[in-house]
């Protein structure tokens, strides 16, 4: 009987302590997350205008300033062109050796995981 009472006491105290500690941990993690997000929302100090090397008189429209943490449309366009060009060059060199991972390998499977994840993250799409 003593042993059962001891076991029940251990269960109540043990699980109580574990839950209490983990609730505290959860609150701390939420606090850190909140501070982190708050730090990100703080607007950056205005930077000095970068010097340009455009020739005088050249027809040039100043790109729209991007929101903090965002890329300008010009930069996105430049990156897109670079990616397309790169893909075209690689396609031109197309050969069986271009395949980075064998179908059926673990790395190949990760692509399936990516598809599943993106599918799950689009709840607005009709199933």
């Amino acid at each position: 009987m003593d042993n059962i009472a001891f076991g029940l006491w251990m269960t109540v105290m043990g699980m109580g302590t574990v839950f209490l500690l983990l609730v505290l941990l959860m609150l701390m993690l939420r606090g850190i997350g909140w501070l982190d997000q708050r730090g990100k929302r703080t607007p950056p100090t205005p930077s000095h205008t970068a010097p340009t090397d455009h020739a005088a008189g050249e027809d040039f429209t100043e790109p729209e300033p991007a929101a903090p943490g965002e890329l300008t449309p010009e930069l996105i366009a430049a990156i897109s062109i670079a990616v397309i060009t790169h893909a075209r060059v690689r396609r031109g060199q197309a050969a069986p050796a271009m395949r980075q991972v064998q179908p059926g390998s673990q790395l190949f499977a990760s692509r399936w995981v990516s598809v599943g994840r993106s599918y799950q993250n689009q709840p607005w799409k009709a199933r």
Partner: protein
Amino acid sequence: MSPETLAQLLQGITNITWQSVVMMLIGGLLILLAVVKEYEPLLLLPIGAGAILTNLPLSPLVGEGGMLSILYNVGVSNELFPLIIFIGIGALTDFGPLLENPKMVLLGAAGQFGIFLTLILALLLGFNRSEAASIGIIGAIDGPTSIYVSGILAPHLVGPITVAAYSYMALVPLIMPPVMRLLTTKAERSIKMPYTQREISQRTRILFPIIVTVAVGIAVPFATPLIGMLMLGNLMRESKVVERLTHASANELANVVTLFLGLAIGSTMKGVDFLQLGTLAILGLGLLAFFLDTATGVLFGKLMNVFSGGKFNPLIGAAGISAFPMAARVVQKEASREDFSNFILMHAMGANAAGQVASVIAGGVLLALMGAG
């Protein structure tokens, strides 16, 4: 040839006992599981080899000056090896999914119920309090924690407890699904949970191990060695400034210590001491602990489902144990089994990472309640 010389030549054969033969067969079985089934081969293979080497007649590897005994004294009796392995685990673990969704921490706590329920059952079976607590820790589903806690509370049970912990951990894909299916409905298993990845800054990732160590260390000093080493490994990983140390901890150091630990644990499986009714009871209770952990995790998941208005998939509760990342994978597999397009892996990973932390805390709490020092 004199009879003495003959006896000396044949002493290997004459000293074979049925217990040593059975233990060598058990060692062979562990090696078979490791090689053929690939169940936790990194540990089961050295443990099996250690068991065979120990039970060979008049084995010079055990006893005073024997290599296996030296390994045991150097790393198991003083809990050094499990702690070093924890550095490697910390260096390998990504707590990102947990940081993205802190409420998953609660599922980690629910996954520890099995420890205490098994403890009660062990007491009912006649084990003393220290032994019962050591057997209960199998329910942490965490090999190094099991070795650490049982090494302090009941060193004579380290062998069977370790074998039970690692063997059943390898069997998680077989143990968990029936319990999960039994306790959930098809509709519950099919609940989809949208996942929105939140960017976690490096500052947060670095602060996490430091804060957890200090907070847990102050609240439960007995957990400091376990949580401290786990978080040290994670701090090295997330700081990104000690790549060499991180790599060494997660690979070379962890591999070497795993080999030594496996051999040392195998050396505790001496037939005369191991083949007792108590060992069978420990193996049975260990299995029960795994079932109870899964069941309480799923039931807590169902509770969260009620509080969330039916938006929480209860299967995720089963991932709140320490078998990382196997438990999360099993949960995802079960969800996919009902609905191929259901993707709850990242939520399950969060719960699984929480289980990693919670098992260490539970081990420390158990030691504190037992007044171990």
